[in-house]
């Protein structure tokens, strides 16, 4: 069986289902609303696996699923070796999200990474500790800030409600995924003009580590239906 992993809930799941449906593939949950099993009609020999979007990168890397739908942000954050482990098949045109850095609106002297770096020096001098940036994207943020050359900051882990950390005084700035910026606005934060660390969207990924042997007919069927040239480079 060729295994396709899709997000197990939410908007991302709905969009994924309708994206496949447009190409003649019906993804259906089986059993009760709460049961994480599914089926696919339209092609044979393909199994649907419902997974948390955050688990999909790891499952692809381990080769336990052949194909998976998740955001590029999660792939880049969780799989430092993604180039050798997976291959991007198609960008799906939804689930757009940018990893950005945001600071309080009232920091009227801060608009760019250059300003953030200068303020980080000032903040450390004034407060005796390094300016805190709350995020769950530690690798991507550290890499982005290192590339630019921001110093005197520290990353504090925030797995949710990250935009609230500044008002709660547990961070001075945040780095998080945003699509519309509405949550930032509601939490009195603004984006830095050059602070987009990654542009992400939902995409179909193929695992280079999965066992594809004996799956040629399923693969060809699927490629034909989806208009893909090939799944694995």
């Amino acid at each position, binding site marked *: 069986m060729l295994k396709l992993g899709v997000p197990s809930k939410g908007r991302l799941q709905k969009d994924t289902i309708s994206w496949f449906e447009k190409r003649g593939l019906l993804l259906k949950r089986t059993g009760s609303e709460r049961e994480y099993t599914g089926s696919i009609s339209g092609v044979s020999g393909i199994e649907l696996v419902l997974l948390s979007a955050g688990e999909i990168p790891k499952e692809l890397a381990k080769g336990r699923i052949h194909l998976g739908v998740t955001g590029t942000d999660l792939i880049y954050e969780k799989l*430092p070796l993604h180039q050798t482990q997976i291959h991007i098949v198609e960008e799906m045109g939804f689930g757009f999200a940018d990893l950005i850095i945001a600071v309080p609106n009232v920091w*009227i*002297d801060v*608009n760019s990474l250059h300003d953030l*770096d200068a*303020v980080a020096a000032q903040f450390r001098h*004034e407060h005796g500790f390094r300016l805190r940036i709350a995020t769950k994207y530690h690798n991507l943020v550290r890499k982005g800030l290192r590339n630019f*050359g921001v110093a005197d900051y520290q990353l504090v882990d925030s797995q949710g409600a990250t935009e609230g950390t500044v008002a709660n005084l547990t961070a001075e700035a945040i780095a998080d995924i945003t699509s519309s910026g509405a949550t930032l606005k509601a939490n009195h934060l603004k984006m830095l003009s050059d602070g987009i660390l990654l542009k992400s969207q939902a995409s179909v990924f193929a695992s280079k580590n999965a066992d594809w042997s004996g799956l040629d007919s399923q693969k060809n069927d699927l490629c034909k239906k989806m208009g893909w040239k090939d799944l694995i480079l």
Partner: protein
Amino acid sequence: MQNERRAAIRSEAKRIEKYFIDSGALLIEADSLLSAETLLDLYGEDIRSRAYVTNDPVMGERMMRPDFTVPIVERHMSEGAEPARYTYNGPVWRMQDAGSKRETEFIQVGFEVFDRSNPAKSDAEVFSIFNDILPNNLQTSTGDVGLLLTAVIGLKTTDLRKAALMRHLWRPKRFQSLMELFSKINNENNKKNSYSKHSDKGLQKAIKDAGKFIGLRSENEIYSRISALRHDAKTSPISIEEASVVNKILNLKATASEALLVFEEFEKIIPNMAKAISGFEARLEALNKRNVNVDKLPFEGSYGLTSMEYYDGFVFSFSDGDTIIASGGRYDALTAVLGAGREIPAVGGVIRPDAFIRGGEKC
């Protein structure tokens, strides 16, 4: 195979350790688990991508030692007698870039000199001790971070700009972008954020209009940065002559004795470099006395700026192709940071016996 290789590395490490002891060093031990806070405060968040972090419920975050510098300096600062020569021999752990074939655990044998009497002589002592024990087919690189440091301090510009440059001395890309910014007549960064047309009341209003005040950074901190930016906007750019000296230092590749001639030209434009240059000259003499041929010794002006150790003076390495077998340098400022008010000039280096065995003929 693995066992044999490890045994060979250990015995080679032991041989180097003995050589360092015979050269006057005291063998000391260091902890493997270090306070993550100390390292993070010193190196910044980047250290997390280079050192392994572990957690203790009571002691908090600990780091697997990425090198011996911090524990040795801390130990010397708290209990060491002066002058001191130390050697150590043990594993260090370094996280490597994804996909890298580099080792994450390897042995370092080091030699460090804490001596305030004659820095040039200490530099030459460390270099020649390394030079003598290593195979002579290796490529040598040397540099001197002190030249760039004194050049920056000697620029005719504000302390604010110098502090910004000094802060990024070890991040060459950012350093150069700041140099460019400070060499412009009107830089856009200042214009935008300095609110030059706002009165104090106007600024207060601008902050109020920006919305709800959140976060730990106070209104006063915002005002004080804006006032610094206003001051900076009136600062004259760094002169073309001075900027070109900084550029030339960063791009200089020559032999050590050739470099000295160029430095004398630089000193005419940035006189503050005098001390570093006379120190450089004294070092060449000291090296010469130890039979190092300075007419052939390679020198690079930007060498040592990207290493983790925050060297601020003489730097050197011995490598075999891409593999660095030994490296070291002077780190006076680090002792001041870790010494809580005390400081001592320090210079030292490490040899990686594993690279030595792989690369050199020794085995």
